[in-house]
């Protein structure tokens, strides 16, 4: 019985520690959830950006809202903007001050792509 009681104790400690972690509850704060700004909005839902193509005038603030249960990161291809990991209902806003086409994707799920056209 004494052979590896320390091992059992360690395993039990790990199990108890894990049991104490509340599922899905944020344990550390991340400042990802500002209120949505006025302007265009893009919803992140079901692993896609909607609408995928948005056309806005210069100076518009675009706000992304994550409606998925999974975290997403909004990142432009040319590294002009990048959000923190957005949990459910978190928002990210960026104001476009120059015309152009801004392709972006989700850094966690690179298959998710879309673009903002600023004119």
């Amino acid at each position, binding site marked *: 019985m004494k052979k*590896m009681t320390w091992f059992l104790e360690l395993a039990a400690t790990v199990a108890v520690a894990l049991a104490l972690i509340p599922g899905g509850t944020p344990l550390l704060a991340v400042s990802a959830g500002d209120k949505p700004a006025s302007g265009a909005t893009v919803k992140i839902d079901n692993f896609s950006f909607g609408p995928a193509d948005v056309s806005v005038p210069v100076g518009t603030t675009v706000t992304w809202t994550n409606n998925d249960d999974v975290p997403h990161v909004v990142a432009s291809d040319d590294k002009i903007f990048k959000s923190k990991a957005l949990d459910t209902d978190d928002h990210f806003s960026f104001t476009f001050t120059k015309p152009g086409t801004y392709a972006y994707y989700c850094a966690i799920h690179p298959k998710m792509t879309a673009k903002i056209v600023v004119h």
Partner: protein
Amino acid sequence: MHPFDFKSALLAKHAQHIVLIHFPIALFIAGVAFDLIALSTKRRSFADAAYYNLLLAAISTIPVLATGVLAWQFALEGQKLKGILLLHLVLACASTVMIWLIWWAHFRARRTQQALFNYYVAVELLAVALVSLTAHLGGFLSGVNAPG
């Protein structure tokens, strides 16, 4: 992306973690399965198979953990985690510790020619549950069930 486009696969940054993670999961579960068979059949060959599966599972956790941390750095730039991401990280670290401890217990038992501690099967099954939960969260995060 073409399935054999190695350059894109390597540059996908965090994709390696998603590929490599299958090795410790499969090897560990197979190791435990062989161990249970060895326990019931008392055949040495199954015990050997269990030992080497557990050994390879433990070794394969190293690149998996490394690529997981790299994914955290590449995709999220090392920002503080919360929610499912944090839970996945904590469970992954705990799973890694459990896999290494279970392999070490087998290694020690073989080297000293002693029987494993009582209730070790329960600990192994607990570890399998832990690994499965971690894998479930990882799959959820990766969007493997996402449309398209």
